[in-house]
């Protein structure tokens, strides 16, 4: 996955970090303080394979992430991982869905342009004949109170 460069960004004011993902890939990400507000009524949908590689996205996913659909399909879902998200949150996600249970959580996502957007996400395993075949996620506008709680909690989880 490509590192981010200042040319990608909507602002010169950014924080640089290097993220290491579960598969050992490293990526330099640049994060700005620019928030994209979640439009009322938008529902962001994606479906991944067993490794979290994106197979399907809807229009709202494309708009909110700042990528094109072609840039997203076939990429690992960690393309959206924000450096402010504690790894423990995603460890919990994977542990839950691999047990064939649904997961809910508040996630700060990174946009292609370095900005961010908060979502409330549901992820479920799609089970056929007892086997997980894919994962589907729906995200919506989070409650402002819950986001405020997460902004306090998440920095303590690193």
């Amino acid at each position, binding site marked *: 996955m490509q590192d981010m460069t200042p040319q990608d960004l909507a602002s010169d004011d950014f924080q640089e970090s290097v993220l290491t993902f579960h598969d050992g890939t490293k990526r330099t990400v640049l994060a700005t303080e620019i928030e994209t507000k979640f439009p*009322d009524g*938008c*529902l962001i949908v994606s479906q991944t394979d067993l490794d979290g590689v994106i197979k399907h996205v*809807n229009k709202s996913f494309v708009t909110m992430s700042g990528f094109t659909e072609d840039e997203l399909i076939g990429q690992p879902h960690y393309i959206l991982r924000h450096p402010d998200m504690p790894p423990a949150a995603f460890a919990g996600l994977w542990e839950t869905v691999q047990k064939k249970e649904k997961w809910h959580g508040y996630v700060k996502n990174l946009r292609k342009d370095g900005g961010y957007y908060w979502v409330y996400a*549901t*992820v479920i395993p799609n089970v056929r004949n007892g086997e997980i075949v894919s994962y589907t996620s729906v995200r*919506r506008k989070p409650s402002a109170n819950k986001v405020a709680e997460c902004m306090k909690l998440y920095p303590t989880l690193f």
Partner: protein
Amino acid sequence: MPYTMTISPDFKPDLISGWYIFNTWLQKKIDEKIHIEMVNDFKELASAIDKGSIDLIYANPCDIAKLVREKSFTPIAKPVGTHDEAVIIIKQDSTISEIESLPGNVKIAMTDVPNVNTIGLIMLEPADITPADVETITCSNYITVAKEVIRGKADIGFLLADAFDEFSSLVKKQVKPLITSKIHVLHHALLASPGFADKQKKLQDALITIQNDATGADILKNLEFQSWEAMDNDEAEFLIDLIDTLSTN
């Protein structure tokens, strides 16, 4: 014995004649006898599906899982140019302009259309309103939902967005949309029972070429779609997964 086709009861009431005209065209086109059997609500539909009395169905996305998984129906085609979105309506003169200003114990008028209600409730989540907090009034159709809101019996109402668009100007003067979903990937679909299996191909071919037919374009206009597009099992599976995810609370 003619085959039986039914239309999910959440279609817009003014499209009823469109479906009868479509059926007349379809019977001629594929040279099969098909009888339309309308149902009044989702309960009646569920019992018809369980009895195995339906061969063709224009189904709501929430019924596709049962039809495909439990009853071995096959997806044939989906409408192009129409999606299933939900809208939350409020009285026109209400001072509330965002869901965050709604009272916690909000009273909601709703029909029995499952995906509309699921998405309606999801759209209330950002205001920290959960299904446990709300009081619901079940209505037999969309216009009754609007009436309950106009009369002040309900604070808000859940509707199929297309149904709201079709309301008369008299109704629209009295209620307004507070929030409309943008999910873009939910849609109805035409499915065929295993008993129709040997005719599926000719049915699908007829549908996806309907616009080439002189009367076909008019028929589509009466159903308010642009065209029919072939739908395969993978797409039905995706819809089923999506409905599962939406219904998870």
